[in-house]
């Protein structure tokens, strides 16, 4: 009897072994494109019956904190994580990420947009696969601009932006010529201001890592930004981030908004936006110095070195960033919902180009971004709207607070930049820069 029982149990175990699923834990942000990925992930589990998926979704800052803690201590809680172009070079150089050299055979790496691929490549190896990428552009109300008797050039200058903002502002009817990020944070107001400062000829550091925040070019940038928003911006601009400006634009309160290209699909979607049929797009402005104020960011999927399921994780990354996935989203959710900015083949698709009025500008903006040469004068760092060093989160946010206070009228531009220069200098000295 006992023998029979043993045999039966062994048989049951043998039969059940191949069915025992491996569970991948995926950490991600709650952006619309990721929500769609989660919804469509049945397609992956059906194609890979041995792999189950567990999702951990978080607000960006919490995600960054958790994932950083885990990856730095080799905790191994996550098998796939969503990170940005800022983290990839830093983490890859520390050996925290596995190089993605086991992607599917038909993945077609050469189809990835070169600027995006370069940003995620470290030591000639791709360390994260782009899920969606964005640059920044000018979004404007075609009706208000026409009413003002102006026409948006495809490549506007900051001078034109000021002129158009003045012409479109109608404070009595709560219409403001320009909406820009003012909320403090390295990924909020400093993303805009850093990218903007590049087109004014400014830079964070010179070749010897000496902070340059008290330079004339930074003064010009912040002076322009503050006076533009104070004269033609919405009230309380110093607490507006991406989402607040999105809400303002969608409800018809902004004439122009310079922000992430991903917003193009939100503001031209009639379900969410009151002004969907009255929006136009143009490249981020410049000042004639050879650099535009557009940035580059790619939310990407990476596999931490601490995972014990690297093979399954690579399979998932291949699936979620493949051409087939883009086709799946187009089929299930519609062409306009396809994650933008990663693959050339998407932009070769005439149906997509027609369905998305912002597609060409997005592509041009991404192609024009060069994180390796972001500024007019040479710099020792990589990154357009950030400086790819671990200290930047801290100093970026600290300077962001000063400049947000300047915008709120709590101190002068000169004082804000002098304080910023001082605190960045101190932080960089403490961190041991210049490093040889």
């Amino acid at each position, binding site marked *: 009897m006992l023998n029979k029982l043993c045999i039966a149990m062994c048989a049951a175990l043998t039969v059940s072994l191949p069915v025992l699923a491996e569970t991948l834990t995926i950490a991600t942000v709650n952006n619309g494109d990721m929500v769609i990925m989660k919804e469509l992930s049945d397609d992956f589990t059906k194609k890979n019956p041995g792999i189950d998926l*567990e*999702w951990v979704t978080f*607000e*960006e800052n919490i995600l960054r904190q958790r994932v950083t*803690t885990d990856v730095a201590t080799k905790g191994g809680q996550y098998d796939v994580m969503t990170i940005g172009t800022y983290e990839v070079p830093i983490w890859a150089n520390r050996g925290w990420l596995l190089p993605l050299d086991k992607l599917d055979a038909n993945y077609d790496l050469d189809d990835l947009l070169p600027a995006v691929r370069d940003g995620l490549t470290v030591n000639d190896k791709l360390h994260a696969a782009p899920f969606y990428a964005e640059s920044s552009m000018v979004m404007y109300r075609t009706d208000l601009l026409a009413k003002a008797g102006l026409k948006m050039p495809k490549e506007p200058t900051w001078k034109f932006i000021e002129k158009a903002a003045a012409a479109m502002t109608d404070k009595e009817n709560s219409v403001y010529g320009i909406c820009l990020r003012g909320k403090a944070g390295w990924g909020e107001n400093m993303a805009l201001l850093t990218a903007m400062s590049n087109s004014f000829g400014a830079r964070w550091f010179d070749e010897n890592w000496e902070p340059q925040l008290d330079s004339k070019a930074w003064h010009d940038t912040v002076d322009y930004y503050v006076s533009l928003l104070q004269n033609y911006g919405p009230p309380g601009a110093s607490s507006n981030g991406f989402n607040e400006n999105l809400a303002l634009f969608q409800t018809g309160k902004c004439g122009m908004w310079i922000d992430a290209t991903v917003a193009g699909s939100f503001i031209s979607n009639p379900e969410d936006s009151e002004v969907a049929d009255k929006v136009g797009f143009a490249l981020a402005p410049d000042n004639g110095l050879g650099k535009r104020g557009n940035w580059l960011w790619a939310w990407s999927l990476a596999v931490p070195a601490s995972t014990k399921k690297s093979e399954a994780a690579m399979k998932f990354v291949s699936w979620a960033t493949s051409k087939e996935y883009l086709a799946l989203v187009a089929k299930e959710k519609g062409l306009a919902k396809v994650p933008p900015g990663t693959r050339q083949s998407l932009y070769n698709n005439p149906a997509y180009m027609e369905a998305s009025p912002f597609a060409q500008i997005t592509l041009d903006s991404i192609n024009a971004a060069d994180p390796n040469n972001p500024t007019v004068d040479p710099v020792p760092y990589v990154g357009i709207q950030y400086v790819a060093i671990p200290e930047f989160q801290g100093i970026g946010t600290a300077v962001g607070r000063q400049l947000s206070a300047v915008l709120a009228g709590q101190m002068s531009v000169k004082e804000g930049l002098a304080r910023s220069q001082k605190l960045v200098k101190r932080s960089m000295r403490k961190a041991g820069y210049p490093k040889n």
Partner: protein
Amino acid sequence: MSIKNSNRSKLFYTGLAWLISTAIFFPILWTFLTSFKTEAEAISAPPSLFFFDWTLENYREVMERSPYFRHFWNSVVISVGSSLLGLLIAVPAAWSMAFNSTKRTKNILMWMLSTKMLPPVGVLIPIYLLFRDLGLLDSLTGLVVIMTLINLPIMTWMLYTYFKEIPGEILEASRMDGATIGEEILYVLAPIALPGIASTLLLNIILAWNEAFWTLILTAAKAAPLTAFIASYSSPEGLFYAKLSAASTLAIAPIIILGWFSQKQLVRGLSFGAVK
């Protein structure tokens, strides 16, 4: 004249109490109302308080997108588990310090409280490494232990204050009758101090329920409680206020209901010994 005056001051204080409680309650009411709006209505300016198209869409989406009941169950296990475990340690500790105090008791109490003065992020890395090596990451056991440790100083302090109010002679009498230490605590002290023990328990359940640093850092998918459920509805790029409000309402509703039913107990416990 004096009656008129006292009526007027009564009216003033009643008004003031209403004003303060409305100010405290308003954010919760606002969250509740926003959870029934569409995303577009949630951000509309000027905002509408009651006159909008009420919808349950956010609740449907939130329930569909995340396993609410799993998060809820995790929250229950973590908060109730850690509070009960904490009581098991705190009651004897408080008993010992209240009835058998030595000259170092005050210092011990202060030392215990001092552990609450360190910002939690200061010990993040050591705790994380310990959890990793003990295999406690993303486990309910690990969270129950950490929440017990975090709330233990408060529990011991609260119980110590309640026990100090109880005349030591009662315990002495039970000892005269031959009660052991265990019997003395269980059959004599516990029934007398029940309101205090109950309010300590309730307060710690609430504290553990709302704790949102360790519960976010030490969990991933399996042991994540309702704090993680709320945090997953904020988005850097996209509108989320209505869905976030629905998730928050779902997360705080159980603890508000618990607090509502046990408010008498809570107030009685918290004001125990207030007038000496």
